[in-house]
């Protein structure tokens, strides 16, 4: 950080670090060194260099390789922020006993960060009064970023403290409840007015939803607006497609008079939570291949504190639809909501066998995206699928062909139901096939 405010060496007073000495501080992220490459009356530059111990970065036997060889020791991110907050805490608070006036005065500053993920740098720093220039490093995410502006030193430090990890995105690890307090403290005086405050808040808190909401609520107070107003900004304006899908599925289950229901590929339990609300579903069996998803579903269903009567209706079990699972036999209906498109086409016959020959419920509901509708999603780039794990997305004709084949081979009748707003040409965004076996008709 360089200033040309004269006498420039006063910077040392504001930072509480003497320009003629090199000092080292042990912080939780490594050893931070502060020294001055230049210190004249006209121009003074302070440098903060953090030495991270790469071997100590590793945590425990569950670590992935990416934790061992990684850019953390070199990139300006959360580790550097921790050092910054520790070494320049007083200066960041804007306190200076010897130079209180100067601490309150905006002075010309140039901040250079040689390895910073720079994609959002201009967008986030410019509204704060910085002029941002970037020299990229090849096709990497890093750039040599220079910020120029006339600001109070304390504000400059706060901006860096909050925005360095924000720019770094998901690459920083620590998020605890008190991060909300830290964010609000360092954001005092500027974050509430920042046009990208949601983005900053979300990324700073590593996209942890509950934390984000509480931080947003408190920001709303600062802004003196109702919390709902901010929350509304997050909620989708219309009834979401996911909700329409669940509604359509439940309607079809009720039509089929299903009581014992399988949710195959239940994931985090979005549909299970709706099924539980309907007492006519006396047995609800959620199945997923991911043990993590099942834990999430159990958490969201509050299985640990729900009443026995509700608890007894719900079963959660790990299973895979590419293996035959005799435990899935004997149910009235099975739902595969947005599941088949996550299965490789070569494995669909195995899924067909598990669902239609082994589980063999009276009714099977399958929903899947209608790829014809994709161009109508404004945010979806052309030719891209709706989810990175989708192995395919079918047209209506393709889905009908698959469903028709299954129905014929397995002795089911099938009808198709569109879900979501129907376009005259492209159909509805989601398509559902309702299979019913002989007895149900």
């Amino acid at each position: 950080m360089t200033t040309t405010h004269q006498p420039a060496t006063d910077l040392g007073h504001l930072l509480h670090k003497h320009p003629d000495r090199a000092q080292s501080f042990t912080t939780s992220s490594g050893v931070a060194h502060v020294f001055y490459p230049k210190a004249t009356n006209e121009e003074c530059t302070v440098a903060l260099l953090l030495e991270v111990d790469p071997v100590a970065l590793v945590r425990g036997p569950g670590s992935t390789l990416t934790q061992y060889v990684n850019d953390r020791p070199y990139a300006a991110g959360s580790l550097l922020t921790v050092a910054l907050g520790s070494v320049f805490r007083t200066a960041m608070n804007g306190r200076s006993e010897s130079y209180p006036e100067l601490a309150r005065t905006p002075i010309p500053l140039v901040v250079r960060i040689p390895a910073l993920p720079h994609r959002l740098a201009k967008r986030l720093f410019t509204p704060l009064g910085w002029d941002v220039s970037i020299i990229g490093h090849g096709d990497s995410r890093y750039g040599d970023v220079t910020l120029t502006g006339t600001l109070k030193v304390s504000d400059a430090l706060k901006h860096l403290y909050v925005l360095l990890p924000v720019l770094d995105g998901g690459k920083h690890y620590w998020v605890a409840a008190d991060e909300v307090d830290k964010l609000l403290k360092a954001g005092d005086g500027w974050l509430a007015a920042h046009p990208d405050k949601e983005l900053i808040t979300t990324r700073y808190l590593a996209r942890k939803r509950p934390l984000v909401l509480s931080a947003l609520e408190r920001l709303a107070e600062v802004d003196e607006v109702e919390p709902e107003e901010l929350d509304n900004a997050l909620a989708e304006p219309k009834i979401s497609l996911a909700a329409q899908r669940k509604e359509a599925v439940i309607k079809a289950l009720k039509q089929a008079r299903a009581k014992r229901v399988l949710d195959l590929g239940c994931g985090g339990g979005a549909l299970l939570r709706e099924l539980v609300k309907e007492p006519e579903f006396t047995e609800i069996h959620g199945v997923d291949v991911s043990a993590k998803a099942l834990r999430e579903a159990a958490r969201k269903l509050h299985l640990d504190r729900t009443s026995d009567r509700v608890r007894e209706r719900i079963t959660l079990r790990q299973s895979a639809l590419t293996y035959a699972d005799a435990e899935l036999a004997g149910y009235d209906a099975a739902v595969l909501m947005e599941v088949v498109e996550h299965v490789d086409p070569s494995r669909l016959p195995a899924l067909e066998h598990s669902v239609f020959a082994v589980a063999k419920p009276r009714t099977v509901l399958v929903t899947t995206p209608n790829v014809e509708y994709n161009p109508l999603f404004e945010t979806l780039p052309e030719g891209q699928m709706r989810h990175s794990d989708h192995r395919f997305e079918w047209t209506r004709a393709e889905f009908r062909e698959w469903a028709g084949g299954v129905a014929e081979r397995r002795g089911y009748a099938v009808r198709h139901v569109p879900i979501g707003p129907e376009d005259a040409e492209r159909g509805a965004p989601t398509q559902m096939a309702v299979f019913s076996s002989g007895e149900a008709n």
Partner: protein
Amino acid sequence: MELKIPDLCLVVLIGASGSGKSTFARKHFLPTQVLSSDYFRGLVSDDENDQSASAAAFDVLHYVASKRLEAGRVTVIDATNVQAPDRAKLVEVAKKANVLPVAIVLDMPTDVCLKRNAQRPDRDFGAHVVKRHRAALHRSLKFLGKEGFKRVHVLRSESEVDNATIVYERLLNDLKHEAGPFDVIGDVHGCRAELEELLVELGYSLVHDDEGRAVDALPPGNRKAVFVGDLVDRGPDTPGVLRLVMGMVAAGHALSVRGNHEEKLVRALRGHKVTVRHGLEKSLEQLAHEPEDFRRAAEKFCDSLIAHYVLDGGNLVVAHAGLPERYHGRASAKVRSFALYGDTTGETDEYGLPVRLPWANDYRGSAMVLYGHVLVPEAEWINNTMCLETGVVFGGKLTALRYPEKELVSVKAHEVWYENDRPLSTLAPQREPDVLALTDVTGLRRIETSLLGAVTIRAEQSASALEVMSRFAIDPHDLLYLPPTMAPTATSQRDDVLEHPSEAFAEYLAAGVREVICEEKHMGSRAVLLVRKEGGAIYTRTGRAFFDGALGDELLDRVRSACAGLFESFDTDWLLIDAELMPWNAKASGLIREQYAAVGAAAGAALPVAVGALESAAARGVDVADLLARTSQRAANASAYSAAYERYCWPVEGLEGVRIAPFQLLAVEGRTFHDRSHLWHLETLGRLEGPLFQQTRHLVVDTLDPAAGVRWWEELTEAGGEGMVVKPLANLGGRVQPGVKVRGREYLRIIYGPDYTEPTNLTRLRKRGLGRKRGLALREYALGIEALERVARGEPLWRVHECVFGVLALESEPVDPRL
């Protein structure tokens, strides 16, 4: 007095309080075989005499009895059992486990019981209790057979009790002592001529009577024919078939189980009212021309047939309609009905034939099951079971399987003897091909391997693998093997390196291995190539396809055309090859961009600036000398790091630039090669020619004199090579590591980070623990070889998949990924 009981049964002791049941049980059975109601009352209530705890006590007792019987263990119930409802529950438990219930009644005089009870302080209840027990017992005695007890022994005095001995009898279905070899013959259905022809084909000599009728067949050597039942009905000469088979069985040249057609024929011959159809009319008509005594003999023979046989120490089961493992060697109406009719649902199909469930799809037993009953176009293996009913009577063929050779022998029908109810052409395949069940892979598993014995897979390891396997892996039919992990050599104590070949050579020398082969380690991605004459797959260490769609097909095509010579010389339709696919970025481009390149870019951006700033400060006279030196070194390390990973990346456009280095021929049809020398493998695979293939440089080293090996490694790694793998030349398996890797100093920067060579870092990194990785390497190797052997033996897919899945499950174990 001998009390005969089946060698698998539920023994129900019946007697009043004080009749000496516990003493009797102690004398004749193991303590663990005896379940006493007193003991279970104590178990649930802390008081053996607390009658209010009886209901709970019997719940537990029944549960334990069920578990024991399911496991095939003789179990004795020590309770009064004088009341019919109590016994009914026990009979139910026995039937559910398909074992026979037997009763041993201790009908002791009242005074004996009273005297015994008087000696026990905890039995101070009055004489009326004993009297009541005895009265109930006497009311029951003559109904015990009706209640379902297959044997009832009654002991009426103390001396009878004293002199009683228990004698175990084999069940009728137990022919485990018959070890074969056998010729198991499918449904004959009155086709005498074809049967005679088949027997001759199998090497039997027919014996004829004065009238020229075949009455016996002498087997070649010590072989024996085994008929799967349905000898009769539909065909042109049921009496002739019976005459021949009866002769063979009587002479000890054949065995036969009972088919559903024999069952019905017996009923018809006995004058029961049966619907005469499905070819029964033919038998009755033909038998009507036979003399009365032959009809009687035929009836007696058919009625004597047992519903299933367990042969050859339990390795072979023959039942007319097949039999699931839980019924092998068991006796109950349920077992019998399954053996005769199969797993019927009670429904009928559009041709009016009973709908049967495909029990063989779910069969996971180790015994081979041979059966008939269900018409199949060709006899084929389904999970170690085979149906031999190939419809000779409908104009198909009569089929036999030689056991243990597993050779099929068949003769064509001479004509269509009977029109099928269902046209032959509509015969659907009997199964979904090779259906894998969830229970084949989940939960705690112990997999028997030839190299290491049982390898245990924990439930949570299976659970993690399930997600990866079912979401990302290719079709299990093509996923016949997953390569094991490989441990690095023991950590070197030299100043400047973490790994050095000396430790590898020393390790093998210590294990008694003199000859090792050093193979150049190609820095790419491990690839398994399953090359079929049609189809196949090229997949990664976790079973994912390497290239999607057309690109994958094209690569496979190129490999296939190079394999033409190998297909021929091994006389096989498929080859399974272990290889390395290069360049590294062909698969790992995402990882390289996000991880390795990012480190290089960030370090390259930050460190030179830091060095510059420190130099300026130093020029001002600030003391930053140490920090400057360290930072300059880090900058140099970072450059070395970038150079290290960039070496293994090169541009790939489509398949241009892709190279494959094959180093082991894992298996071909019917054979594995893990016992061949590595030189043989490299030489054999060296025959794959073309720009796609890269040879693997190698050197054979004597572990007593390994200097040349060390030099070779030094040259290799100094020239930028990743390092080498050291393996026992003779390709040993088992307790010796199948190979260890010795990685180069510069290469390890990619793994341990740019600055790992700094002395303080090296010192700490040396404390790496290798034990877990080495254990995993051995177990995964054993599982991999087991998978290959099972493939080569033509075992069911689930048996192969179990091992492959096990490798993936073990890989989910958290191990330091830098090793």
